[in-house]
């Protein structure tokens, strides 16, 4: 007889066999979560509290609006709760813990699904806002580079800008003068032949489109009175003689206004520009160490033609100060020392402009970073609340199951 006894393990337990996870129910809950989230997102856009609206506004100074943050959290809570409750109901679980674990699993699946969608470019689900964080990051870069190019453009535009300003003032003067001269021109027309009234002509000049008006101003500044008169005659209902009288009168009036005794309008505008620039340059050396006076600068700049002036400004924009100095020495009769003085002053002025622009750009970057941080924080809060609410939803679903489908009895336990 064999005395050897074999052993086997026998496990006794009163626990029921663990319920298998119901993936079908989780899938159902996933679609419910995403669908409800999409619905609430649409409503958010309609009301204006979606993250898209907040980002599009680009008024980032105020930070993420509280309404937007609240809506992100509320919609996450609603979507996750509905999904989790549906999951645990569909899973037909009676154990509360198992129900809550189903809810937890649903939260995980929904989060991963959202991240996958976001990777594919769909960032609106569950308003997790990854797209907008990325957008905010891009905005930071764009703001910074826009600030830099604005500075460069501003520096380059000093010469062109002053010229443009002069042109605008000139254009306004021309337009006003033309309108005023109308009265006098019409008054010289024989009353019997009058086919147009004073009002009509004034209106016609007012109605000159931008292109025609620019051409008119260009003709006047180029001293081409005939072309200007022809343009007026073509564009309005004035006759050629009336137009010519008008132009001549307006032209003389303008020359008086700008104080030009001889020479053309172009010269007078250039003279104004040179005066303004000379005063500005001489004023740069504000500590009283000016060795170059405004009149000397003015004289030097007057000898520059427009091309040389633009070349100098471009070199200044590129911070190529040696080139600036060389150009000024080459084009004017200033000495090296005087030129160096001028360049130093201009450098100082540009430096303060660049500093101002850099400060503005840094502030913009900080604002955008703060905004991105707020979005990230709100997204985290919404996801965390979603997790808590998913567990709650799982529990609620189980409670519903127990109430509806199960009889719960309490059995005494004998010790």
């Amino acid at each position: 007889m064999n005395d050897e006894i074999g052993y086997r393990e026998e496990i006794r337990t009163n626990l029921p066999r663990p319920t298998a996870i119901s993936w079908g129910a989780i899938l159902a809950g996933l679609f419910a979560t995403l669908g409800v989230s999409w619905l609430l997102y649409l409503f958010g856009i309609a009301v204006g509290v979606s993250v898209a609206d907040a980002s599009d506004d680009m008024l980032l100074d105020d930070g993420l609006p509280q309404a937007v943050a609240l809506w992100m959290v509320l919609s996450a809570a609603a979507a996750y709760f509905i999904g989790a409750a549906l999951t645990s109901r569909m899973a037909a679980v009676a154990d509360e813990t198992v129900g809550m674990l189903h809810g937890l699993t649903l939260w995980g699946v929904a989060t991963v699904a959202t991240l996958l969608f976001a990777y594919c470019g769909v960032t609106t689900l569950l308003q997790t806002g990854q797209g907008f964080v990325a957008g905010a990051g891009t905005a930071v870069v764009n703001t910074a580079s826009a600030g830099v190019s604005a500075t460069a453009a501003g520096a380059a535009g000093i010469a062109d800008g002053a010229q443009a300003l002069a042109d605008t003032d000139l254009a306004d003067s021309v337009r006003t003068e033309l309108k005023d001269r109308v009265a006098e021109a019409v008054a010289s027309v024989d009353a019997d032949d009058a086919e147009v009234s004073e009002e009509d002509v004034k209106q016609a000049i007012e109605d000159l489109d931008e292109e025609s008006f620019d051409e008119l101003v260009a003709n006047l500044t180029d001293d081409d009175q005939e072309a200007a008169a022809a343009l007026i005659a073509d564009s309005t209902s004035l006759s050629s003689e009336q137009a010519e009288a008008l132009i001549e009168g307006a032209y003389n009036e303008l020359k008086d206004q700008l104080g030009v005794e001889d020479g053309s309008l172009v010269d007078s505008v250039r003279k104004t520009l040179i005066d303004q620039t000379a005063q500005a340059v001489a004023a740069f050396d504000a500590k009283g160490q000016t060795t170059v006076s405004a009149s000397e600068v003015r004289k030097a700049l007057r000898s520059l033609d427009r091309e040389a002036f633009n070349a100098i400004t471009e070199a200044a924009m590129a911070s190529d100060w040696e080139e600036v100095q060389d150009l000024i020495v080459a084009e004017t009769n200033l000495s090296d020392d005087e030129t160096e003085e001028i360049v130093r002053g201009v450098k100082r002025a540009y430096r303060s402009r660049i500093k101002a622009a850099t400060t503005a750009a840094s502030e913009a970057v900080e604002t955008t970073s703060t905004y991105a941080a707020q979005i990230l924080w709100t997204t985290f809060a919404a996801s965390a609340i979603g997790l808590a609410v998913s567990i709650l939803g799982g529990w609620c679903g189980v409670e519903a199951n127990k109430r509806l489908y199960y009889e719960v009895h309490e059995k005494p336990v004998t010790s």
Partner: protein
Amino acid sequence: MRFGLIGTVLVILIIAALLQNVALGGIGGTVLLILIILLLLGRI
């Protein structure tokens, strides 16, 4: 009870869509959400 709620939601949302009224749409949406949650909890 459930058909009453569903009917209410439908009417409110249709009117909101026709009138393009966001407030009505919000109310309808809220009632809809409540309906869904009550349904899931087995109360209706």
